[in-house]
């Protein structure tokens, strides 16, 4: 937010503003936009999958294209849609919830976003350059090593770049929460969404490096003829599976914990009640994260690790049902005795409880190793993870978007359309995925390009496809709602839901410095305390004074562009060494940006006290 940018008008200035912004709220918009775009892309890929499976031995997609479709659907949805959408919500809300003016590393925040975005674009460029990756989102070696063309190369580099961005985001949130809480905001007074942001970031910090290493090994094997997964030279393909799942299981909790957090906030707001068992909720979150690191081999029950390993991992996996159960029952207890308002944000939260419970329960069924010999790699697993991911994470994202839309964009989404979208989505979702449990057990493995005639699988698949289209309709209604709201939506007050946490204490949308004066927190649900026991608004913890703001910068964008170019270089240098130039140019650009960044002093600027005084409250 440089002074110059606010004075100029027009699209160019607007664009420049977003390209250079280091404001966490604008970066949140970018994340939501980017993640939303990839969600639509992943959704369209899902529809292609379902069209192909509408009837037996269908030839809508070719075999190779089908494998590209599922790979890109899974990869896009997990890395480029669900996670960034959560990062967007965290960016928008978490600093407000702890009464901070900014995040710890505004520059890194922007860099993180642009790395994610360019990584995602790089990955999707594969569609136009000879074919997408086709070895599944898990990219098991040696299939991924032998996969012809450059598809898997795009996978390794795209994920490497966007993964680096995510890691930065995680560290940024951690430090923000450790050092930048407003006075009185102790750890045990933080809203649950902030807590889950914290724990999720810890998971990102410890899980992503394993993926980073795995991707390096894959990249080296494919591009530089190393022998990690080359059995003839002593390589071992199970290493990839371990590295992938050491990352992969924590990853699924990265996808669900933020949702748990925001549901906690939503349930307590719309029940007008304090969250039941706050302490237990916090510890359950930490316990889930901790256990989440000890269960990865449940994806590998059939690899042949032996009965001892299978038993240990089976029990560790089942144990996660306990802290998760604590959460489910605490949410129910929060509603119990409350005064429940049902609007579209709350509907998504209410839809989540039965959906996620089903998904979680099938998860525990999968954890029973011997039963998993039957479930593994069948549609039962597909059903399980869509119940938890769609019914948990996607419902969570949608709940969060409806809940915080006023705060983020200053307008309230249309209720009628919100409710319609919810019901259609809920019905479509259950139609699509419930039946898949049975399809799996009836002998339909996953990642099957075609299923054969006369195997009793036709009806189930047809129902499933119909459901997917209903979800598509719901998504379109949501899009219309967003456009409608942008054009003639109702303007939002600062606190439309009678909120309890600090983000509702400031205007919607918040000014770019968030809090004119840092608020003083007197307990859990600080705004609620002030409403019931105080003046109805936050007491400032400091006298009005100058506010220090960071400088905007285009460097993150250029740096990410550099890595993007270098990514292409790496992929194509195998074909022609001239591409090494792109590698050097790209990395060089990034390094120069880094150098500029570290040599130049960035002291930021101050908003003067007088200017703040002039602004209305």
């Amino acid at each position, binding site marked *: 937010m440089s002074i110059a940018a606010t004075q100029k008008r027009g699209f160019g200035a607007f664009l420049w503003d977003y390209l250079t912004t280091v404001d966490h709220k604008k970066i949140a918009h970018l994340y939501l936009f980017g993640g939303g775009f990839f969600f639509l892309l992943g959704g369209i890929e899902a529809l292609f999958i379902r069209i192909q499976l509408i009837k037996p031995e269908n030839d809508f997609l070719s075999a190779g294209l089908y494998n590209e479709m599922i790979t890109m659907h899974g990869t896009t949805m997990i890395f480029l849609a669900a996670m960034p959408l959560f990062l967007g919500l965290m960016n928008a809300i978490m600093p407000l919830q702890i009464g901070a003016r900014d995040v710890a590393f505004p520059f890194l925040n922007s860099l993180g976003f642009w790395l994610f975005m360019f990584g995602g674009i790089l990955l999707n460029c594969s569609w136009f350059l000879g074919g997408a990756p086709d070895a599944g989102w898990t990219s098991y070696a040696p299939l991924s090593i032998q996969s012809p063309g450059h598809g898997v190369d795009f996978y390794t580099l795209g994920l490497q770049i966007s993964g680096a961005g995510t890691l930065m985001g995680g560290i940024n949130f*951690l430090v923000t929460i*450790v050092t930048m809480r407003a006075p009185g905001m102790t750890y045990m007074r933080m809203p649950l969404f902030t807590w889950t942001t914290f724990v999720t970031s*810890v998971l990102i*910090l*410890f*899980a992503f490096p*394993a993926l980073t290493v795995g991707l390096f090994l894959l990249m080296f094997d494919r591009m530089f003829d190393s022998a990690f997964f080359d059995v003839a030279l002593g390589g*071992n393909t*199970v*290493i990839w599976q*371990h*590295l992938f799942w*050491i990352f992969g299981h924590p990853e699924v909790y990265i996808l669900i914990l933020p949702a748990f957090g925001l549901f906690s906030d939503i349930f307590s707001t719309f029940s007008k009640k304090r969250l039941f068992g706050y302490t237990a909720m916090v510890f359950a979150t930490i316990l889930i994260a901790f256990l989440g*690191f*000890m269960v990865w*081999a449940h994806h590998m029950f059939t690899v042949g*690790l032996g009965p001892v*390993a299978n038993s240990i991992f089976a029990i560790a996996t089942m144990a996660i049902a306990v802290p998760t159960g604590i959460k489910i029952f605490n949410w129910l207890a929060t509603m119990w005795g409350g005064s429940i308002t049902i609007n579209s944000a709350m509907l998504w939260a209410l839809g989540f409880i039965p959906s996620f419970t089903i998904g979680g329960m099938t998860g525990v069924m999968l954890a029973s190793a011997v039963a998993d010999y039957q479930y593994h790699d069948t549609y039962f697993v597909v059903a399980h993870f869509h119940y938890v991911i769609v019914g948990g994470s996607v419902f969570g994202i949608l709940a969060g978007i409806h809940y915080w839309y006023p705060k983020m964009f200053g307008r309230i989404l249309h209720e009628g359309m919100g409710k319609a979208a919810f019901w259609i989505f809920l019905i479509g979702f259950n139609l699509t995925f419930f039946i898949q449990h049975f399809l799996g057990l009836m002998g339909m493995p996953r990642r099957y390009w075609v299923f054969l005639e006369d195997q009793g699988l036709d009806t189930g698949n047809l129902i499933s496809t119909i459901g997917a289209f209903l979800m598509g309709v719901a998504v379109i209604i949501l899009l219309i709602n967003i456009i409608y709201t942008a054009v003639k939506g109702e303007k939002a007050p600062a606190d439309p839901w009678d909120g309890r946490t600090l983000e509702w204490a400031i205007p919607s949308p918040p000014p770019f410095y968030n809090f004119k004066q840092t608020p003083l927190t007197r307990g859990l649900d600080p705004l609620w305390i002030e409403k019931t026991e105080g003046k109805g608004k936050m007491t400032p913890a400091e006298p009005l004074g100058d506010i220090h703001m960071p400088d905007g910068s285009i460097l993150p964008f250029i740096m990410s562009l550099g890595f993007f170019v270098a990514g292409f270089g790496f992929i194509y240098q195998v074909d022609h060494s001239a591409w090494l130039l792109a590698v050097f140019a790209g990395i060089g650009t990034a390094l120069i940006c880094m150098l500029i960044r570290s040599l130049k002093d960035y002291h930021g600027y101050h908003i003067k006290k007088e200017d703040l005084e002039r602004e209305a409250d």
Partner: protein
Amino acid sequence: MSENTNTNSVNSFQKKRNKDEMKKQLISFALMIGFTIIAFTLVATKAMDKMFIIPVILLLAIIQVAFQFYYFMHMKDKDHEFPSMMIYGGVWAAVLTVATLLTIAWW
């Protein structure tokens, strides 16, 4: 700006504390070098059986690393609760990872 850099601005009490600290760090350095020499000698002279040498040198490495973290990197000081939490978190994930991948070799 360099005129601001005034050596005398650090008071003598702090100076003494810094010195004491430095002494501890020197001792830990000496121990680290000692451990390294022991580890190399053990291997070079094959003084013990393989079954003993490996655990012993691993133990020496771990102690050395503890010195690095606690003295050189000040993890023993107050204000380092979060750093040590994160390092131990990392170590936890690291131990699991290494232990699992090690089993591949015995498969």
